[in-house]
C-alpha cells in the first residue's frame, strides 16, 4: 500500500474537479492507501460548514466528513481560506489548518502526487 497526496485548487461547485478529487481519495482509501488532501485556491472555500445539500449542486461537506472518517488527512491553506471568510470557527471539524509547506511536507513522504489545478 502506498501514500498518495492530492492537491485540489478548484471550487466546491463548478468544474466538478472537486468531486473528482473526493471520489478518487475515497477510492484510494478503500483500497488501503494512505491519502492526504490539500485545499488551496478556490478549494480553500470548501471547508465552510453548514452547506445545504440541494440536489442541483455538488455537495462537499458530507463526502468530506466521510473520507476523513476513513483516515484521509485533509488540510486547507489558511491564508487562502481566511481571505474567503472561512476560518477555524466556521469550518468543518477535522480539517487541518496550515501553510503551504504542509503540502510540500506531505509530498516529501508520498509515493504518488496528483496535483489538480483548475478553478
Amino acid at each position, binding site marked *: 500500500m502506498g501514500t498518495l497526496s492530492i492537491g485540489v485548487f478548484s471550487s466546491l461547485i463548478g468544474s466538478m474537479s472537486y468531486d473528482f478529487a473526493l471520489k478518487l481519495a475515497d477510492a484510494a482509501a478503500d483500497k488501503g492507501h494512505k491519502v492526504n488532501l490539500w485545499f488551496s485556491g478556490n478549494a480553500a472555500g470548501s471547508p465552510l460548514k453548514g452547506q445545504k445539500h440541494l440536489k442541483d449542486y455538488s455537495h462537499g461537506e458530507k463526502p468530506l466528513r466521510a473520507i476523513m472518517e476513513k483516515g484521509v488527512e485533509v488540510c486547507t491553506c489558511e491564508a487562502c481560506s481566511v481571505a474567503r471568510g472561512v476560518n477555524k470557527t466556521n469550518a468543518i471539524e477535522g480539517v487541518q489548518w496550515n501553510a503551504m509547506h504542509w503540502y510540500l511536507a506531505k509530498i516529501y513522504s508520498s509515493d504518488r502526487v496528483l*496535483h489538480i489545478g483548475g478553478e
Partner: protein
Amino acid sequence: MKLGVFMSEFRAGSEVLNRLTADKLGVILVGNAVYHAAVKENGQSSSLLDKSANFYALSEDLETRGLSPASIDSRVKVVNYGDVVDLIFNDYEKFAWL
C-alpha cells in the same frame, strides 16, 4: 519516466500535452476531456488520440454526459475510479493535470 497525464478539459491543454514526452505515457481523460473519446467533429476523431500514448476515459464522466462507454473510440480504455487508483500506483510514477 512513466508519466500519467490527466486531461480535464475539451478545449484546453492539448498544446501542453503535445510537448510532453515520456518512456511510458498515459493519458487519462476525465471531466469534459472525455469528449475527446466520444465525439467527432466534422467526421474526424480528436487529434489528441493520434499521440502515441495509452488512453483511458473515466466511465462515470462519460455516462454523466450521456455518452455510452460502448461507443467510444477503440483506442481508449474505459476505467472507473478504482481503476484510476491502480493506474496511479501501478502503471505511472509522475502525474500532470491539464
